[in-house]
């Protein structure tokens, strides 16, 4: 979201919600207050949704968006306020009762069971049955149909856990849209999706909207919000700051309203010529013919100190696989890796960490959040493990480091002793990122580091990465957001179809150029 252009305003067709005075809201929440020990997550917030509108709920990380959603569906009980759905006052007891009343929800983190099949994850609870027996045939067929609408063609019987996180997210969405609902709640459904999938999702959302479903949409991607929403409600620090028709606000106004201040850091970060790679130096990392059958065709890659390599490519192009191979999270079956000119064999992440490589994975949440530890403990975990348990990090250093990163990444609440599980989704992400940044590795691999992170903090994270690279760290930066890759990288590696298809210096490159490279190979393949 680099450009503050206002040109993405959709302006087609009659806008629902134009005349709310004569339509009854389908959801009306008034004076909602929710307090957790020590935090008022929501303070007298009112919120309404009309049938047939897409309503964006906006706010920074920790603003209270997910909490409002959980209040609506009864996962949290409210301390004050009323909730009306379809005109009657409701206090749901949880997802199941909310669903029965027509409120279908995709919560922020993918909340599915990875041990079950895709079809079961989509249909369980309302699967077709005959005399108590699940009709697997019909269930699988229905799953296929729903997933096809989302542009996904996977075996319904395959195990959910075998699919990448993006597919899991689509399945979660499929589960929610397949329920005949009056209200569809989508809490950051697009966090791990690429533009193709997002387009498909929006098609489905639009068709549901035209059927009169009210859709609540949360996202930190402003483009998406402006593309799909009709109305928006903005929260800040648990308070309501405004409700607008989307076409009445500009991005700038929205961002200001969300942050409560102007956003300064969004211009293109300056690239210094000195950071162009010098072929005569030894690279921090040199991979030659690194590959793994079925995951990645052999790839050559050099990463020099102080350099950010951006990896661009569509979902499933092999970008995550490359990262995992570089880190030793998956074993490679071809090729060699040299670190500072020395051959190494990275058999495990442990080994890679010993060699001062860091890897913040795209599944950070499932792979790293320790909910019952504090923010500070979660942050220092990696550093402590790398030093060995016999050499504790001195308390003074700990405090300094923690304070530094809480500030640099704007983690909220800015309390190092807060329990991790009580942080909002985006703030947990920031803590996990800080865990790797703190270790100051020689080479840091970041897979989707800004996923689920708000506009303000995103810029801050980019700034931190840039600073670290300036201090000499080599960075491999992977993101589905091409703008972000372009802003940060010195060199660009383009992946497609599990191959590295191009490598170019990032000089005046535009997203259109990148898309062209990705698409060019499609052309070649088609010809």
């Amino acid at each position: 979201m680099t450009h503050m252009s206002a040109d993405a305003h959709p302006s087609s067709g009659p806008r629902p919600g134009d005349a709310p005075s004569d339509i009854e809201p389908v959801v009306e929440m008034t004076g909602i207050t929710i307090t957790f020990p020590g935090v008022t997550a929501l303070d007298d917030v009112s919120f309404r949704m009309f049938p047939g509108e897409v309503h964006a709920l906006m706010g920074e990380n920790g603003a209270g968006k997910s909490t409002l959603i959980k209040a609506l569906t009864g996962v949290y009980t409210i301390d004050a306020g009323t909730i009306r759905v379809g005109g009657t006052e409701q206090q749901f007891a949880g997802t199941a009762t909310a669903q029965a009343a027509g409120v279908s929800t995709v919560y922020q983190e993918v909340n599915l069971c990875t041990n079950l099949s895709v079809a079961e994850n989509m249909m369980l609870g309302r699967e077709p049955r005959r005399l108590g027996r699940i009709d697997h045939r019909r269930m699988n067929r229905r799953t296929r149909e729903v997933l096809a609408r989302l542009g996904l063609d996977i075996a319904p019987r395959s195990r959910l856990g075998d699919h990448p996180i993006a597919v899991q997210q689509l399945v979660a969405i499929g589960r929610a849209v397949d329920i005949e609902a009056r209200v569809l709640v989508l809490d950051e459904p697009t966090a791990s999706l690429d533009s193709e999938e997002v387009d498909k999702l929006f098609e489905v959302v639009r068709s549901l909207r035209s059927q009169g479903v009210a859709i609540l949409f949360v996202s930190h991607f402003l483009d998406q919000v402006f593309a799909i929403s009709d109305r928006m409600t903005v929260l800040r620090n648990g308070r309501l700051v405004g409700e607008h028709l989307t076409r009445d606000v500009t991005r700038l106004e929205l961002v200001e309203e969300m942050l409560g201040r102007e956003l300064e850091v969004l211009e293109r970060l300056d690239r210094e010529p000195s950071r162009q790679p010098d072929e005569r130096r030894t690279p921090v990392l040199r991979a030659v013919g690194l590959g793994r059958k079925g995951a990645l065709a052999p790839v050559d890659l050099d990463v020099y100190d102080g350099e950010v390599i951006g990896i661009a490519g569509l979902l499933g192009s092999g970008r995550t696989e490359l990262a995992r191979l570089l880190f030793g999270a998956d074993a490679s079956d071809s090729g060699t890796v040299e670190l500072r000119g020395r051959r190494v064999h990275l058999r495990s992440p442990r080994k890679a960490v010993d060699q001062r490589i860091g890897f913040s994975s795209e599944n950070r949440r499932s792979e790293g959040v320790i909910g019952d530890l504090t923010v500070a403990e979660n942050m220092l975990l990696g550093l402590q493990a790398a030093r060995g348990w016999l050499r504790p990090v001195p308390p003074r250093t700990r405090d300094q480091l923690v304070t530094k990163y809480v500030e640099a990444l704007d983690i909220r609440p800015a309390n190092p002793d807060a329990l991790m599980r009580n942080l909002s989704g985006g703030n947990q992400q920031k803590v996990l990122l800080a865990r790797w940044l703190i270790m100051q590795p020689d080479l840091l691999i970041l897979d989707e580091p800004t996923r689920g992170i708000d506009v303000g903090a995103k810029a801050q994270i980019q700034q931190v990465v840039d600073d670290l690279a300036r201090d000499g760290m080599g960075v491999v930066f992977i993101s589905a957001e091409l703008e972000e890759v372009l802003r940060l990288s010195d060199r660009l590696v383009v992946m497609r179809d599990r191959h590295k298809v191009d490598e170019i210096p990032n000089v005046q490159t535009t997203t259109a150029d990148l898309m062209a490279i990705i698409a060019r190979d499609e052309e070649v393949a088609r010809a």
Partner: protein
Amino acid sequence: MTTATASDVSGRSFVDRLKGYSPPSQVLPVLATFALLVGMFGVGSIRYEGFASPQVVLNLFVDNAFLIVLAVGMTFVILTGGIDLSVGSVVALSTMIAASTLRAGWPPTMAVLAVLVTGTTLGLAMGLVIHYFEVQPFIATLAGMFLARGLCYLISVESIPIKDETFQSLSAASITLPGELYVTPTVLISLLVVAIAAWVLHMTRFGRTVYAVGGSESSAMLMGLAVARVKVGVYAISGFCSSLGGLLFALYMLSGYSLHAVGMELDAIAAVVIGGTLLTGGYGLVIGSLLGVLVLGTIQTFISFDGTLSSWWTKISIGVLLLVFVVLQRFFTRREVS
């Protein structure tokens, strides 16, 4: 460049790759257990005369019918990520209730009903405590274990023989199979229980929700599934299976005694784990637990065929096997994660 002849540009290769996924195999650990069983029989038949005869195999079922039933109930519980330590005591209690009610002249059907109702109620109660008071299953069922064992002593400290005719004739009954082989009715009951359990676990919403809860309880909750019903239900099922297993045990021993089935809960747990069910829940098949019981039975058969080995070798080999299987499972789960 591989040749993607896609007509649309929508990340075709990605989709193609996903299509190639074959259903992942829950079956693998079960196959491992089966291979182990076959291997053990192979070794046995080489070392001992008459080891690999069909009747020896059938006797595994005959001698372990009650344990099979217990393991089935335990599978339900472990699949949700729980544990039930009370089953051995409930078996003892069941034999006591059966023996004492029969001695008091109750008709056998009433005695059977009393046993089943008691066991199921006890399981239900533990389930309610576990779910609604958020007590660790380990603790709640440990309490249940002491309670059931205590109730036995309340009925009688002495062993009570079962002299009821129906029970006696059932106990003596055998079903002849072609080739001069036989099984007992208890075997049929236990196999029926296995079949029903497998059906419930795979074909019903309840069964699939058991797996869902084991996979991730919080997700299951947020998916709007009937988590409470399942979490309480599995303990009721385990209670039912323990009491049914108790009845089969009563038929096997023809007595009720407070000291019956001491430590049998651990055999059941061992069988389930050896059968490939993950103690953390979510993965496992009931057929695996059946095989697990047969493995335990085979170890015992080994000892009895050998004659020179002390019966402690049973425990030792079970211990070793358990360790091996748990380590293997760790391997499996590691691979799943990456």
